[in-house]
């Protein structure tokens, strides 16, 4: 005990200053990270996290000037995105690094890496190292990089945006395993990432990099901006909505399809906010687009205020008279005016060949023919201001907008025709940190002012439910739990909801392994290979949604049974 604390800390900086030209990235920061300590830096895009880590690793990026004292013992840097050659076998690349650091030959280096993979919880069956990284799933690549770090066993591990882009439950599982290893082996671990990436979860200390200073992080907003009003009558109904995509014909020429959405029922009431929660492959985005009939679902019915949208959006049977005068087309246009989408990549949802204002004008002309042409500019300015932009933004080209401005412009376009429902598919996916919070606050303010219904599809459990009345948790195209937001935030019952809740709070999710691909779904419950409650019966039947309390539905065979062994 004593002789450990007598040694100097493996990472120490003294008034470390980073300058990029005349811009201060980091102003006189003094840090000290002990052995076995996990430190996380968070910060938005361009806040200087990568430059800080690179400076600690002794390789500051070109153009960044470093001043002040840095002392870092034998370190290993995992760069952003992992930096692996895409076409060389993964085993060779990892073993080369391990062998270089430890002076081992290939066989011993591979054995050490395999031990590291055991500590990362990768089952032996999943180790396909002779494949190049581009053919492996992202989660396995990151697990392998972490295993490489474990095999090398440095005094300090610096990881830049570790496991970024993975689903929250998978990411948090890997990060917690890495932190466990660091604490057990006495490694100083420094993680850097965006605040919504969850690097803060497994860390002992969190510092937020804002305006060149390392500060305590701002706790995220947990309560709604303004108290939620009770919703009104139900207007939008979806009945057994299903979506399947055609695949190439099978060996005997039979038609094959891939079903991604399985008979979803859903009602949306006036002024209600519904969160669609799910990770990659849960088909939450497909459901959101099906509600808009863009494209229409292949099964079921979507009814808006008594009008069947699927019939209206189907192409006319006769083919020739596809002009705008058919009664169906008028009805569809009316529904399009009421139901407006927000896109996950707002910048791509604007035509690059037209200014923002011209596109808004076109949308108004189409959806609100009752507004005179000379009044449209006024409406456009109002919508832009309401969405938090200056009216001058109408004169700009989409390519000239920043990512945040594009997101706000997307919101302005959606509220332009005075809709009643916004259907938002990960609207803030491209934003980070403060920009993300600002955008979501604007969205909620717009919703409250206009008393809009909102469908919000997201993979951030807490953030989605924070402003919602009700939540639906989706997994592999099925609803696994639906309840009011408060219940889902405090006492979810399905193991998948619990794991998503844990991941959103930075805790360790109780799920093992990765989500199966859409082409290799297990029989029975799609979660059974990862689930702590899984028993043999789970392989035999897909659990049906049953009501466990008024308004609370769960689809799990064993939601009320504790985990075995």
């Amino acid at each position, binding site marked *: 005990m004593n002789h450990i604390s007598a040694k100097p800390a493996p990472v120490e900086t003294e008034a470390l200053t980073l300058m990029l030209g005349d811009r201060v990235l980091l102003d006189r920061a003094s840090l000290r990270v002990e052995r076995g300590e996990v430190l996380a830096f968070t910060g938005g895009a361009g806040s200087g996290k990568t430059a800080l880590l690179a400076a600690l690793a002794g390789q500051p990026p070109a153009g960044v000037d470093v001043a002040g004292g840095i002392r870092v013992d034998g370190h290993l840097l995992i760069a952003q995105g992992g930096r692996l050659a895409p076409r060389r076998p993964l085993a060779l690349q990892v073993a080369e690094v391990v062998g270089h650091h430890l002076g081992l030959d290939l066989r011993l280096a591979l054995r050490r890496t395999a031990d590291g993979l055991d500590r990362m919880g990768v089952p032996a069956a999943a180790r396909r190292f002779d494949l190049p990284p581009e053919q492996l799933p992202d989660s396995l690549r990151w697990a392998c990089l972490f295993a490489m770090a474990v095999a090398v066993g440095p005094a300090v591990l610096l990881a830049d945006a570790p496991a970024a882009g993975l689903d929250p439950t998978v990411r948090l599982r890997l990060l917690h395993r890495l932190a466990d290893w660091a604490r057990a082996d006495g490694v100083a671990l420094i993680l850097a990432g965006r605040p919504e990436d969850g690097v803060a979860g497994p860390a002992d200390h969190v510092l937020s990099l804002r305006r060149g200073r390392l500060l305590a992080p701002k706790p995220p907003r947990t309560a709604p901006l303004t108290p939620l009003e009770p919703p009104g009558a139900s207007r939008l109904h979806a009945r057994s909505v299903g979506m399947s995509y055609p695949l190439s014909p099978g060996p005997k020429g039979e038609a094959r399809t891939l079903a991604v959405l399985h008979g979803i029922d859903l009602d949306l009431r006036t002024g209600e906010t519904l969160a669609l929660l799910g990770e990659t492959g849960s088909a939450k985005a497909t459901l959101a687009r099906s509600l808009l009939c863009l494209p229409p679902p292949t099964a079921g019915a979507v009814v808006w205020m008594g009008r069947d949208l699927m019939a209206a959006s189907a192409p006319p049977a006769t083919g020739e008279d596809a002009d705008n005068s058919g009664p169906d*087309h008028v009805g569809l*246009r009316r529904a399009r005016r009421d139901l407006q989408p927000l896109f996950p990549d707002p910048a791509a*949802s604007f035509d690059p060949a037209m200014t923002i204002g011209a596109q808004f004008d076109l949308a108004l002309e189409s*959806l609100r023919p009752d507004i005179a042409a000379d009044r449209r500019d006024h409406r456009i300015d109002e919508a832009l201001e309401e969405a938090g932009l200056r009216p001058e933004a109408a004169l700009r080209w989409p390519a000239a907008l920043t990512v945040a401005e594009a997101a706000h412009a997307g919101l302005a376009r959606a509220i332009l025709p005075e809709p009643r429902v916004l259907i938002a598919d990960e609207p803030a996916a491209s934003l980070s940190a403060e920009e993300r919070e600002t955008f979501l606050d604007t969205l909620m303010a717009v919703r409250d002012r206009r008393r809009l219904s909102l469908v919000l599809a997201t993979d951030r459990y807490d953030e989605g439910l924070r402003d919602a009345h009700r939540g639906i948790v989706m997994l592999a195209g099925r609803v696994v739990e639906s309840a009011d937001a408060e219940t889902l935030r405090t006492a979810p019952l399905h193991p998948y909801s619990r794991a998503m809740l844990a991941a959103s709070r930075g805790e360790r999710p109780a799920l093992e392994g990765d989500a199966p691909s859409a082409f290799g779904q297990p029989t029975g419950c799609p979660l059974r290979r990862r689930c702590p409650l899984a028993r043999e019966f789970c392989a035999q039947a897909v659990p049906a949604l049953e009501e466990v309390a008024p308004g609370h539905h769960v689809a799990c065979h064993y939601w009320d049974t504790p985990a075995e062994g």
Partner: protein
Amino acid sequence: MAEFDQPPLSHPVPPEPPRAGLARQLSGAAVLAALALACAAAPLMADGSAVHRLDADPVAAALLDGRGSLSFALLAAVLGGALGIGWALLAGLLGNLVGNRVERRVIGAAHRMAGWPLALLVPLAGGLMGKVWLLALVTAMTAAPAVAALAHAELSALLRAEFLTAARAAGLAEGEVLRRHLIPNLTRPLLAAGTLALPRVLAAESFASLLGLGLPPALGSWGASVGLAGRLGDPVAFAPPALLLALALWAACAIADGMAAGNRTP
């Protein structure tokens, strides 16, 4: 309005990077334009009188040859570009009307044919058929598959663009989406694909003329002059057409490359 939307000083917006390939494209276009002008003015260099081509000095003769080469290349490139773009549009249309399988077959044929040594058809056609317009048609067809493959890739990338979904969400009918969004965004990538034909037809025609199976001698061609000078072993007559041909090929490639690169989204 720009001064109102100044970004905060902490996050300066980096200056817009120049469009990729623009410099190459412009220099290629300048060189080709200069060549075309020089070739057009070549009769003035040859003493103004209607001299026989072989009597003129080698540079003037090479410039006179360029008239045949360049005008034939332009004709065949326009034909080939139009054929290729038409092929891609036809594939897209068939995919819409009949089904994806037909579209894949039609464009798969273009991909396979783009790998065949179609340029060998040009001397064959030159040897068998004397007519210039037939030769131009065959030359155009050798360039069309590559144009069709690129044009179809651009077309299908654009058809998946999110802003088309946004336009449909704004209640625009398919005809309106086509007129307001698809056609304005499609013109440039299709033109860029069409310019791919220019270096290909120029090379194919020069190759055929080099073998003596290309353009009729009366029209004159760089390839024919290079071939003749090579057979006679005359370095002074060999150098000017060879250099001019190399320059024209470089310029045509630079234009096609630059247009395709500027069009590619990073």
